[in-house]
């Protein structure tokens, strides 16, 4: 059976034009997908049943037992952490937040090690953005800053920017200028009209220089700013100012290099400044397919996009204090539930070590680095393959992922609802 218009649950592009062929409970072919999509749909080696660590070995347990034990671990904890959420659908994320308030837990998503600094910058200065179709139909200048879409978001350029024809650009590749800013010449830089090579850690200064030029202060610019020549800065600024519609996309090159959220703030303020002259937008290249959904769901329930601490009863948010890495590094948590992400692979060593010391339960379809730190793992259906639910694309457009077949795994929602009910039974109201 061929299913059309399938939504890809891999990256924040959330491409929804895949054609996937299914035989029984197996995906046999994928059309229109990038290599990442193909791997996600076809290379699907799943854990077959819940497993529990027993001494040095793993033993299989039933779902009932695993759910009961997870609830017991969470109920027993003084400072539980509910982490992850970016690789599952919104309905499961919503149960997660309610579980957090019931337990007085700390709940956090993968933004904490990704675009968390972007969120902090947005909270200081706002976010002039747009949906990706605005860019596709209108943008004559596109800037990729500290991001390499060809590797990380392989279809971003063909669906939304460089190669995507739109209403106002019928031959986008020729009519649209692409500028890539990075510390090294990436694959994406190879196909750009202009590559701006910055010395590592120099983003803030280069953004500040561009802001100064846009404000008419060319005479202040020294001959080189973080390795970029004044001539190139002038040229780039002229391109930015000459655009009819410009779009900046930025990645972890800005959020996770020296300056962090201040870099992003500077980039947003450059965008706001450019809007006094012409139309510009700026957007973070969100990684996980539904990380933006976790920000949205957390926000409408608790008021904050990530790092929400319910320990005081109210929702409390203070990145640097309530962010997972900081809490784990301080050794504060005494239990952790990991859902749909892999902190074992992404967190600093000290945090991973703490996760290994405390009872960590992982809800995830696959064996990953976190499995090696966990005490218990519950495999679930993969959203977008054998489970469905809401996802938010990197630009905030909500799309419902499809269920291609009914398999033998429960969904994240099924498992989390059972844990929630079990916890609620113990805690009651009040």
């Amino acid at each position, binding site marked *: 059976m061929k299913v059309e218009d399938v939504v890809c649950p891999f990256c924040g592009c959330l491409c929804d034009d895949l054609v996937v062929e299914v035989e029984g409970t197996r995906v046999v072919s994928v059309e229109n997908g990038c290599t990442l999509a193909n791997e996600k749909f076809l290379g699907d080696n799943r854990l077959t049943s819940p497993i529990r660590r027993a001494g040095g070995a793993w033993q299989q347990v039933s779902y009932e037992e695993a759910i009961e034990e997870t609830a017991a671990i969470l109920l027993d904890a003084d400072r539980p952490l509910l982490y992850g959420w970016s690789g599952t659908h919104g309905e499961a994320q919503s149960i997660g937040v309610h579980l957090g308030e019931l337990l007085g837990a700390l709940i956090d998503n993968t933004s904490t090690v990704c675009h968390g600094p972007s969120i902090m910058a947005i909270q200081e200065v706002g976010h002039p953005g747009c*949906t990706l179709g605005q860019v596709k139909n209108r943008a004559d200048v596109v800037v990729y800053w500290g991001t390499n879409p060809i590797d990380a978001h392989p279809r971003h350029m063909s669906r939304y920017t460089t190669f995507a024809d739109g209403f106002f650009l019928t031959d986008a590749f020729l009519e649209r200028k692409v500028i890539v800013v990075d510390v090294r010449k990436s694959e994406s830089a190879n196909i750009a009209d202009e590559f701006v090579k910055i010395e590592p850690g120099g983003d803030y200064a280069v953004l500040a220089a561009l802001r100064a030029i846009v404000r008419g202060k060319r005479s202040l610019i020294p001959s080189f700013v973080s390795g970029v020549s004044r001539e190139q800065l002038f040229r780039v600024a002229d391109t930015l100012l000459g655009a009819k519609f410009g779009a900046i996309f930025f990645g972890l090159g800005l959020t996770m290099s020296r300056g962090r959220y201040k870099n992003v703030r500077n980039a947003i303020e450059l965008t706001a400044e450019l809007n006094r002259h012409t139309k510009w937008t700026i957007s973070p290249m969100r990684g996980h397919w539904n990380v933006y959904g976790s920000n949205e769901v957390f926000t409408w329930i608790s008021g904050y996009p990530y790092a929400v601490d319910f320990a005081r009863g109210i929702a409390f948010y203070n990145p640097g204090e309530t962010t997972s890495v900081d809490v784990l590094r301080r050794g504060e948590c005494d239990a952790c539930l990991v859902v749909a992400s892999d902190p074992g692979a992404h967190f600093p060593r000290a945090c991973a070590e703490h996760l290994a010391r405390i009872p960590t339960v992982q809800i995830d379809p696959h064996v990953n680095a976190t499995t090696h730190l966990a005490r218990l793992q519950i495999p679930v259906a993969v959203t977008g393959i054998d489970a469905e639910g809401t996802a938010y694309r990197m630009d905030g457009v909500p799309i419902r992922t499809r269920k291609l077949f009914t398999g033998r795994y429960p969904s994240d929602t099924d498992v989390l609802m059972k844990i929630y009910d079990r916890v609620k039974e113990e805690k009651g109201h009040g």
Partner: protein
Amino acid sequence: MAELLIRNAFVIDPLSGIRGEIKDIAIRDGKIVEDTGANAEVIDAQGCLTLPGGIDSHSHVCGTKVNFGRYMSPEDMRAGRTSRKGVMHVTSGYSVPTTFGNSYRYSTMGYTTVLEGAMAPLEARHTHEEFTATPHQDMLANTLFDGNWSVMEAVRDKDVKRAAAVVAWTLAAVKGFAIKLTNPGGTEAWGFGKDVHSIHDTVPHFGVTPAEIIDTMIRANEILNLPHSVHLHCNNLGVPGNYQTTLETIERVPDLHARRQTLYLTHAQFHSYGGSTWKDISSKSEDIARMVNARPQVAIDMGQVMFGRTTTMTADGPMEFKLYMLHQNKWSNHDVELETGSGIIPVFYSRKSLVNCVMWAIGLELALLTRDPWQCMLSTDNPNGAPFIKYPEIIALLMSRRFRDRESELLEPRTGHYVPLFAIDRELDWYEIAVMTRAAQAKALGITSIGKGHLSPGAEADIAIYPLKPQEIDPSAEYKQVMAGFGKTRYTIKRGRVVSRDGEVVVEGANSTIWTKARIPPELDLSSDPEFVKKFEQYYTVRMSNYPVQDVYLPRGVCIGTEASL
């Protein structure tokens, strides 16, 4: 059969012609009935003011831009928070509360139905997700068509049937309730950083004017026989001198409907400015009210501004940018492909600012100068003019000249020279307040026939009982009591069930979402229309099959079906 009997209620039910009498109200299975059996649960209202549940016909509470208002404002989230308690979830936020925060606060003020003022069709799923997390109110969504390419092409081709077909397809696809036009044409122009400055400016690339969009959509709306009229946010919002745009717009409106208005002009306060700059801005409420008084085919809501901190958010992207230039605070913008735009900035309305004082006065003047309360509804364009929790204070201001005079002493001293407010003696009575907070909304939205906004047998048992005894208090003098009373019901009853009591929420709640579906002839169904399908294939970034909002997002959807006159 769940039965409830409310005894000794001082009932004002304008749609049933009840202007204040002591009555009993019988309820069975969520509906108002003639009488109940002997075993009905009884609530003694003790002569307290009892009204149909409040209806907000224009508020921003759910969806992409509202949530972004929360996302970007941890300072606002901190400014209002409650912990989990009983059946109540955690809440955060002052001007843009979390969904449960909105729902509980509305509920304790006696509001049982709320219309979200602006839903971008492409992002409708988000609005519906938040609707289900707003459990105490039935929800409806105004659907944005102001910059819709297919609509503008139909307008250009002078093809009103095609415009109607676009509306019908879209409302059914996104489970929307009504047509919303926000700065028509302006949001498309903003796609390239431009705006339109009069209703006769041409929208770049599409060759149509705002006036043509408005005219065509009014006719399309009536062809589809939709319950509500076109819901318009006029061009030039917030611009000194804009009252002329507003008057020109109203003058064009034909009278096409027997039972309700033909055009609903929202947040009229923001569109009633004289002068030419911020330095000489003045109130033109008298001109606007005179025009409204002469045209029964229009209805307005106040868009009252109240002093203090709030967050502005609208689909009117260019206006928010202008506001950002003025305030230099943080600014968010979010344009939506082929459809509309939006913007958000936080603001502080100050009594020390002459401009803000003039704005404050204009909203009140519009309510006091519009003769027929059915034509002017109470609103703050929540949270743009103020968060909706300010409604009780607005009611008190409208009911008490003394309160207004006392407030005048606190304003920027020149205010009196720019506004007529302090020459107006009118004090609204309980009946007029009941009209302006529920009955007029039900009539304007066209939802009386599904049992909203009144208490006659068969109606939904949505009821608010306020701790106010109209026979004992003088609102003109005791305005503080009026304010407190409207702030917290003794009982709020939703579909026959007590949902909150003395400010405490007592049930989790389960709301409905009301949407419209107009039946049109098959030859006008756009599902397989080549031009329309091409929009999705070439210009949208979402496939046509992934665009419609699935039924699963409306666990308790109520569809109002209509038959188009085509």
